[in-house]
């Protein structure tokens, strides 16, 4: 089954081509939906088959490469279209194809009635094709192909409703913003690739990592490579300072946000760091930088998330914050913990987004949570699944969120120190708080949506009555809810499951054994401490949930008092620390104005062109007044001749006297 792995890439491409070319001609949404979803379903089955086959192999032979054909072969650079099937890539492709399939099914329902239905599925399939290339690639270049491919698809999908407004600008400019910020990240990634090629002479993962260990490369080179690659990851996974595009990415349809901006694309950065674990391991400073960026993003995003009033914005900032956690894990050297959180986060964050999607769907595109309330009785399934996801993300045992987040907190405490753990804990509390603030304002309490209020965007203005989403949308919610619950059990930490109990950790261990070997600095902390910290984090999460319940359910007035009380702070958080405005003023505006007035108008037109045109005018004016010598009188001609002759005679006499 392993050598059929290329099917997982081929089918999404075929799906894209089918929907893309024949889409407009096929009227029925059913056919498009089925083709689109099966183009992801079949690869899921193939991946499961490959997983089973890999499990049967002995531990050390679980990395095999299926080569399709040669891509670029110039001098030292020999790159092929070839796919690497090992534990990490299988896991990631399981997540991508699994969650992807569910979201495809969901979007058949969600996008029902949209006039360019076929285009949506074509782009989604193209996205999966690019994502599969990214995670299955066996070399950096093919990974980069996937890397930019997903960036392109997120650009297309964010700007899907290209004629709709989005927060005083258009959806397409949000898409462009996403693409450009991604491109800035890719710039860093490119530099990383060049440095790898110039130091190791190849870009194929296996060779690079084996040479990374074999060659005695100075540490600062490793640090530089790691940091360059990290810039790429920051761009793609929306860490500080390049996270500004993720909140704007909410302009796209909700399934897009679920698939791309929660489950798969944004985790590409984490996957890449995990894949290059040996490089990061041999650059401790880079590890520290990753950790610091991670925790700081997590904390900052969580604070902004507290005050957002748009349901998708809250979830967007929560994604940025959770990604921060994953990078914190990477920074702490707990690669498998990071990947574990990627998996669990994919489940419950996708669920949250899809839940939000079904809420928006029933409330006719209204996204402001202050207008929701008491939807519990209208949308039971969404309510239940949303509650499960909220508890999971807040890290309440026994749900998956608890296991993955707690493991990260534990490793950050043991490898990085108390400050990281403390910040992580506070962020966890904020996460629990804003999740349940969202939950209570949406599902609990009395209905704040006015009966006759309608959706501001499109749709008819008939009486607003929320209803449960159709089967096609609720079944995926249920599946994801189940996954969010059982997802944690495969990664139970040793203290509960004994020596090799953590299946997840042992499954991924071979991939990271090079890094473990390099780091060897695990300090020995007793299990007792681990247990204590675990109890502290659970208690903190539970208390913030009750606190949120107390404010938003019992006395909403307190929220008003808080927001009016700390007017300044509230405003800063609401406008996300004015980062967008700062970027606009400090980078974009000067560049545009500068290039327009200075570069184009002055440098090009005035200086270079001016120089040449003035040269031409000079010759013209010179010719005009030289012309005057021809006075027309024969004698003046004779005079000029005589002058010439005298000069010649004078010269002959001097030079020969």
């Amino acid at each position, binding site marked *: 089954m392993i050598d059929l792995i290329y099917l997982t890439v081929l089918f999404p491409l075929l799906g894209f081509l089918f929907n893309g070319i024949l889409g407009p001609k096929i009227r029925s949404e059913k056919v498009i939906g089925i083709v689109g979803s099966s183009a992801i379903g079949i690869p899921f089955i193939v991946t499961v088959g490959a997983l089973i086959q890999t499990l049967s192999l002995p531990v050390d032979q679980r990395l095999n490469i299926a080569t399709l*054909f040669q891509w670029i072969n110039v*001098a*030292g650079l020999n790159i092929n279209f070839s796919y690497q099937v090992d534990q990490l890539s299988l896991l990631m492709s399981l997540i991508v194809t699994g969650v992807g399939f569910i979201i495809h099914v969901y979007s058949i329902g969600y996008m029902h009635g949209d006039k360019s239905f076929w285009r949506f599925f074509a782009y989604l399939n193209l996205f999966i094709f690019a994502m599969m290339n990214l995670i299955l690639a066996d070399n950096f270049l093919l990974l980069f192909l996937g890397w930019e491919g997903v960036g392109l698809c997120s650009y297309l999908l964010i700007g899907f409703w*290209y*004629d709709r407004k989005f927060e005083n600008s258009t959806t397409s400019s949000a898409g462009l913003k996403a693409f450009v910020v991604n491109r800035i990240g890719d710039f860093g990634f490119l530099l990383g690739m060049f440095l790898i090629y110039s130091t190791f002479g190849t870009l194929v993962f296996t060779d690079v990592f084996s040479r990374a260990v074999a060659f005695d490369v100075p540490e600062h080179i490793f640090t530089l490579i790691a940091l360059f690659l990290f810039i790429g990851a920051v761009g793609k996974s929306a860490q500080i300072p390049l996270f500004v595009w993720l909140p704007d990415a909410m302009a796209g349809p909700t399934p897009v946000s679920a698939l791309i901006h929660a489950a798969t694309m944004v985790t590409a950065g984490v996957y890449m760091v995990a894949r290059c674990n040996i490089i990061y391991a041999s650059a401790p400073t880079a590890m520290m930088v990753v950790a610091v960026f991670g925790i700081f993003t997590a904390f900052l995003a969580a604070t902004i998330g507290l005050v957002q009033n748009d349901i998708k914005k809250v979830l967007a900032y929560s994604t940025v914050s959770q990604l921060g956690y994953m990078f914190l894990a990477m920074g702490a050297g707990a690669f498998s913990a990071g990947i574990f959180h990627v998996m669990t986060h994919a489940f419950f964050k996708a669920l949250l987004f899809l839940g939000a999607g079904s809420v928006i769907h029933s409330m006719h595109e209204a996204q402001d949570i202050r207008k929701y309330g008491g939807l519990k009785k209208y949308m039971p399934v969404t309510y239940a699944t949303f509650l499960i996801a909220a508890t999971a993300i807040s890290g309440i045992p026994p749900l998956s969120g608890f296991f993955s987040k707690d493991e990260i907190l534990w490793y950050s405490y043991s490898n990085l120190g108390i400050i990281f753990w403390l910040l992580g804990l506070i962020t966890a509390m904020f996460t629990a708080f804003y999740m349940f603030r969202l939950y209570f304002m949406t599902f609990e309490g009395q209905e704040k949506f006015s009966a006759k209020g309608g959706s501001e965007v499109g749709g008819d203005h008939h009486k607003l009555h929320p209803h449960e989403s159709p089967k096609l949308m609720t079944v995926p919610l249920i599946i994801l809810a189940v996954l969010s619950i059982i997802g944690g059990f495969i990664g139970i930490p040793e203290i509960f499951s004994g020596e090799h109990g953590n299946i997840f950790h042992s499954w991924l261990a071979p991939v990271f054994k090079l890094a473990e070997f390099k780091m060897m600095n695990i300090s020995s902390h007793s299990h007792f401490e681990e247990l204590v910290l675990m109890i502290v984090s659970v208690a903190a999460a539970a208390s913030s949930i009750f606190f949120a319940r107390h404010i938003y359910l019992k006395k909403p007035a307190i929220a008003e008092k808080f927001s009016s009380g700390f007017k300044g702070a509230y405003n800063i958080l609401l406008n996300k620390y004015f980062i967008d405005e700062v970027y606009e003023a400090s980078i974009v505006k000067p560049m545009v104005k500068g290039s327009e007035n200075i570069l184009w108008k002055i440098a090009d037109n005035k200086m*270079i062109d001016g120089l*040449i045109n003035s040269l031409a005018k000079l010759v013209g004016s010179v010719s005009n007044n030289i012309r005057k010598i021809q006075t027309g009188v024969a004698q003046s001609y004779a005079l000029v001749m005589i002058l010439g002759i005298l000069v010649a005679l004078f010269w002959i006499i001097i030079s020969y006297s």
Partner: protein
Amino acid sequence: MEQSLLITYLLAIPLIGSLLLIFINKKNEQLIKYFGIAVSLLAFVVSLIIYFGFNDQSGEFQFIHKFDWVKDLNISYHVGADGLSIILILLTTFLTPLTLLSSWNSIKRNLKEFIFFMLILELGMLGVFVSLDMFLFYVFWEAMLIPLYFISGIWGGERKIYASIKFFIYTMAGSLLMLVAIIWLIVYSSNLLGGFTSNLLDLYKTGPTIDTTIQGFLFLAFALSFSIKVPLFPFHTWLPDAHVEAPTAGSVILAGVLLKMGTYGFLRFNLPLFPQASIDYAIPISILAVIGIIYGALVAMVQTDMKKLVAYSSVSHLGFVMLGIFALNQEAVQGSMIQMINHGLSTGALFLLVGMIYERTHTRKISDYGGIAKLVPFFSFALLFTSLSSIGLPGLNGFVGEFLILTGAFKSTVLDSWWFAAFSATGVIFAAVYLLWMYKKIVFGEVTNPNLNSLTDLNRREKLVLAPIFVFIIWIGIYPGTFLKITDKTSENIIRLVTSPQNQLPVENVDVP
């Protein structure tokens, strides 16, 4: 070396075609159009035969055909092709029929002269890529100016006179200085080789023996002429005017092939003839190239006219090619050769698209457009696809060239500093900004301009023009091996000539004239 007449046939076809054209009477325009396309397609077929006949294992010139032209100065009609010439010949003969097909009904007035000049232009371009005799090269190099001058002058836009004269004199100034350098080189090697000869292969032997300071001046003379053509940073101001005022066909050929003459010149003449000077001047020229990349991209960002935007993007793209050439290692030179083809395809397609929309709305102002996605879906897809190829999205052709150039520049021993590759890599970001910014303004959003509603999508003919280009864009993106294989030995050969010039000539005490 057996004489092969293939290249002479290749040159003869457009020449005979244009002469026969005179006898077709002006009235039946259909016959003229079909005749023009048939001739250029025939030239394409011959170039394919040459491509398949080319043995890419040997870096030497093949299909050599030589006979005496002026015996006293030992000037001979001496043509041949190596990997570099083959891909550029293919690009020329590939683009010309497409441009003729695209200007099917955009050229109203005296169509016959237009096709005549296009065929002569094709002849001139092919001549430059195949001539191995310095004099013959110079004749084609200059003669090629006349048809383009007429094309952009007669069928151009409003300021066509200013633009065409500026283009003509700009290029003429550079090439005249090159003429002096060529003559100096011929005179210098006449002492070593005994008697004048303008045969390039002999000059390859004597060039490196010139002492470095004079070699520097000669290098600069050649470099000036070629960098005006490229255009390298300070000499680029003629390009936006020439593009804006030229008709669609003119700007496609101008961007598609003419700009490559400059880079071709660097690879064919500057590097092998003056190896020491090339190494000395590699860094200054690369600095200019990097400035060109960033400057071109930044200025393109603020353009209001579509064609000017694409013109400045060409300045930026060719900055990459120049950087690739002067990184002087295998990856970079290969990358620059493939990037020449990529730029020809993607910018050619961009100009074709701009031309097609201009035919319908007669305005090139970006602000006049908005929200045409609903009205012309295929056009929007085509424009997006071409912009992505021009941005250098991996999987499409632009990326292969750019990646190779940047890797080469990064690890190049001649430049030996990361900053070149780092700064030019920012060009990758700006490329995305200005092209997608233009795309957003034109295609997305609501339809603001009322008279856009009458827009019709691309008809079958226009799709037929774009299809082959898109096929090649994907082909080079996914499987560039076909083209990299051709230029592999050639680039090795050129680098070997530069880095270790072995001059077979016993260098006696040469008295410099």
